[in-house]
Structure formats: C-alpha cells, structure tokens
C-alpha cells in the first residue's frame, strides 16, 4: 500500500513550505487525484491522518478532488471519459488515443494554514482571505 509513502510525501512538502513561510499549523489540505493516478483516496485519507501526527499538519483535514480521466483521439476529434478499467481507444473510430486530457494528477492543490504567515499584510491592502 504505497498510500503511506504518498501521504508522507505530502506532509514532507507541507512541512518544507511551512518552514519557509513561518507557518505553524495547517487546517486543511486539498489534493487533486486523477482516476489513473494509481492511488486509492480512502486509503490515502487513512494514511494521511497517521502521517500528520506530530507534524505541523497535525489534525489537518484532507479533501480529495477526484479528477476524471479523459482522452482525445489521434484520428478523429473525439474526446471521451475513459472509465475504469480505462479504454484508451476511441469509442467512435476505434483508433488509439493521442493522449490523456486529464486523469494522472497527483498533486497538492492547496493548503489552508492555521494562521496568517509571519509577514503581516500592509494596512492598505487588507488580507482578502482573513477569517
């Protein structure tokens, strides 16, 4: 189950970012996970909580944005959702897909920090994200 390694990689990157920006806590993390990323979201959520323990991301909420896998045809202009198991041959003309339009994402989309960064915003430009 490589979701443990994936979760640790996520936390590692967040910690690195937090150190750079002087952040000390994380409220939420959003991941984008493509249908063909080879990652099981449920397993990832389970591992994420464990991976966060004792780190800056301790207790952070995880949301996973699932990204549908889509392909486009190399012969006609067909575009389709490849499904699972994926079909990478065009449902219209039968030719191979030229490439995927989406579906292999495995990325940290956004992090919601527990507090503003160490550098305070200037009074003229109020923080648009301030809660």
């Amino acid at each position, binding site marked *: 189950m490589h979701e443990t390694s994936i979760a640790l990689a996520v936390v590692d990157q967040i910690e690195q970012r937090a150190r750079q920006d002087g952040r000390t806590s994380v409220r939420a993390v959003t991941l984008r996970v493509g249908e063909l990323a080879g990652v099981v979201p449920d397993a990832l959520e389970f591992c994420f909580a464990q991976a966060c323990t004792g780190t800056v991301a301790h207790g952070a909420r995880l949301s996973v944005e699932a990204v549908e896998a889509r392909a486009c045809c190399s012969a006609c202009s067909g575009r389709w959702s490849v499904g699972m198991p994926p079909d990478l041959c065009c449902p219209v003309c039968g030719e*191979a897909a030229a490439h995927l339009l989406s579906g292999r994402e495995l990325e940290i989309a956004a992090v919601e920090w527990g507090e503003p960064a160490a550098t305070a915003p200037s009074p003229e430009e109020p923080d648009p994200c301030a809660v």
Partner: protein
Amino acid sequence: MCRMSDLHQAVLAKNDTGAARLRADLDGRGLLLVNLLSSPGSGKTALLEAELTLARERGIPVAALSADLATENDAARLARSGAPVKQALTDGLCHLETHMLARHLDQWPPAGTRVLFVENVGNLVCPAAYDLGETLRVTLASVTEGEDKPLKYPVAFGLAQLVVVTKYDLADAVDFEEETFLANVRQVNPGVEILRTSARARTGIGELLDRALAAADPATVHSPVMACDGERHGHHHHEHDDEHGHDHEHVGEHDYVHDHVHGSGLADMPDSEALQATRR
C-alpha cells in the same frame, strides 16, 4: 499574506526529480536501466536468469538488481548466470523509490555495464507510480494469471513500454485466451509491443535483452498513451485560478513544471517528444 496557498505541487516531485537526475547520470555512464514490474510469482526471476545467461554468452555486459521485501533468494538465483547481481531489501516497503535504487548505483554496477535489469518488488499496484529513471519500463504477466490482468491493473500495464507474457509453455494447459489478453492490453495501452516467453521452453529468450539494447535509441521506445497528458500540461493552473474568488499566493509551481517531473514522472510528461527528450 493570506491563509491559503495554492501549491500545485506534484506529490511525487521529489522522486521524479531524483529519477530525472538518475536518468541523466546513467545516460552519462552509458548504462540502460530496465524496470521490470509484475505480480509475485509471474516468473520474472526465471526469465531474467535466462536473459542474463544469454547476455553473458553473447559477451554483453549486463547486471541485475533484485528488490524484495525480504530474503536474498532471487539474487542468489540470478547470480548463477555469472552476471553482477545485487539484492535490495525494502524492509517491508511494497515498491522501490528512486532514492532507494540510487544508493545502490553509486559505484555499481561495474564500469562498462551496458544494461542493468531492476526486478522491482512483486506488486502491480505501487511500483507503477514510481519513475526510477528507467530507459525501458516492462510489465510482465504469466499465462496462469488470467487474461484480464491488464484491466485489473491498468496503470501498471498502461504505462508499460513493453509487455512480456511469461510461462507461455503453459498457455494451452491453462486455456490462456491469447486474443482476449491482447485486446485487454490494447485497451489500456494501444500500440505497446507484447513478447511471448517461456524460460522453461526457451521461447523468446533474448528478446527482452534485444529490446533493452535497442532502447539506447529513444525513437524505438513506445510512448504509452497513459504517459502522455498533452493539453493538461501548463493549462490547469489557469483553470484552477478561476475556481477561486480570492487572492491566493502561488508558490513553487514553476520550480518543476518545465522539468518533466510534474505529477508522477513518466506519466506526466507532456507529450512523446518530451518523453524522448528526457531519455537522451
């Protein structure tokens, strides 16, 4: 500064950067790396032993690194070929990552080695997500595993640059429906070459070695559809920006976007040209 950061950071960026670096390093050493993926018991070790032995007979310097959770049994079997062999123990981890492989390749294999076969941990799920800096990625399946293996493990078969059927001598005995298997491979990886081999019957022995040597010319290597994500590359930042009505800071995204390490390595290269380019 606000509380949200749009990172757009590939989760496996560290592995992928390492893989790109290792690929360049191996290229400089004239060493071709073949990453072999299969389920446990598919006959990778038997096939590899036959390939190593043949390479030795032909005078082609080859080596093998076998990764397992535990035991050095596979390395002992492969060493019978006379080729330099190493065992990498993952201590329970289900896959190899680049940094684990790279530490074995500092002073090894011996200078002049042409091909290094890496027998990944027997597992068709986890190793598929990790680029190891390979020149050629091969996924194997034995005829005893069933024709639907490519559909059950679409990422492992979808990212393969070569598919190898093993234990082909047993095909009739287990009613292996070859046409169904071929159609299933085509469904997830149209255009990939499929070799039929049997270590026991000496069928197709040497073909894997030939394909590995040919991979020195990147133009001969198949570019799987699943490894080409065309239009998405470079565009999704805009899409994502539009989803948010407030002013996020954007950090880190350009450190890697143009370095072919976005997402999970091989699979996230923007197009076939880029795939080839990284292998020169």
